């Protein structure tokens, strides 16, 4: 699936043709460059590797990787599986023109890390009463039976690390494409914090 690498900028709102408010996330999308072509003969599958954002001080092995494509070393590299690999050339520039308005896209990013979280935040438990002598404000309570089953059921929600996972949201609508500034306006929220890298794929 072809796509581009982007960076989350912020959320805002725009008005549609009828004057309705549409919540949008602004994403700096591209320009991306084809760094490497992977072929069925050599690597076993067809894909292109895209690079996004210049890297200031690449080390020598890293800089060597960019020799074939003759592109300034990039900071973020990602592979996209593409069947018709003949359409691409090393060094080719891909811009936000790839997307059209009202197109559905799939956005992948890393969700915000929340550290070691309790069950109320992590698993959506409702917690206990706050007052009247209650001492169980946000405790998980009982986690299962006794002799039968003699163990804790798989998938039981318990405290632990939460967030910072690779998250994909499907069928998000592209509201506006700003080719001049490489901006993509996607309806609704996308995973991750501001300045986080995103993969925006065509569906």
């Amino acid at each position, binding site marked *: 699936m072809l796509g581009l690498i982007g960076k989350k900028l912020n959320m805002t709102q*725009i*008005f549609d043709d009828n004057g309705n408010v549409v919540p949008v996330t602004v994403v700096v999308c591209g320009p991306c460059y084809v760094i490497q072509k992977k072929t069925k003969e050599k690597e076993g599958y067809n894909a292109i590797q895209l690079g996004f954002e210049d890297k200031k001080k690449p080390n020598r092995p890293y800089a060597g990787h960019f020799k074939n494509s003759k592109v300034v070393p990039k900071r973020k590299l990602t592979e996209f599986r593409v069947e018709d690999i003949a359409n691409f050339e090393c060094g080719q520039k891909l811009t936000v023109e790839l997307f059209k308005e009202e197109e559905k896209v799939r956005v992948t990013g890393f969700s915000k890390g929340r550290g070691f979280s309790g069950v109320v935040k992590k698993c959506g438990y409702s917690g206990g009463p706050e007052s009247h002598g209650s001492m169980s404000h946000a405790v998980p309570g009982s986690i299962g039976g006794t002799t039968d089953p003699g163990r804790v059921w798989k998938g039981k929600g318990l405290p632990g690390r939460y967030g910072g996972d690779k998250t994909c949201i499907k069928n998000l609508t592209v509201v506006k494409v700003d080719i001049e500034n490489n901006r993509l306006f996607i309806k609704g929220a996308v995973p991750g914090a501001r300045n986080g890298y995103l993969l925006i794929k065509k569906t």
Partner: protein
Amino acid sequence: MGKTKKIVDFMPGDTVRVYTKIVEGNKTRLQSFQGTVICKRGEGVSKTFTVRKVTGGIGVERIFPLHSPNIAKIQQMKKGKVRRAKLFYLRKKKGKKAKVAEKKKGKPLQKIQPVKSAEEQLAAK
């Protein structure tokens, strides 16, 4: 993101007339709503203001997005003399107490021309 252009100078307590575009079939006409501004909130493109009027003893409030393309123009009718930014206390008042005293001093009344649409604003940014 750059600055939002300061378009409208009216304040809470002012009486304004808001002209909104309404589409009926193929025709577009203007509808006006006149009342007291009781609240201005939000920043940038998401700024809104609330206009309150009392019609036949029933209070009616409308919230307008300031930068909505559906707002054709906003006319400042009167300036109000108030001491707070949110005039929600007006909802509980009746008769003469529900009125805001007029402010005679200060800048003359302004007539505000069509506001910039959000697209234009974003383009400017």
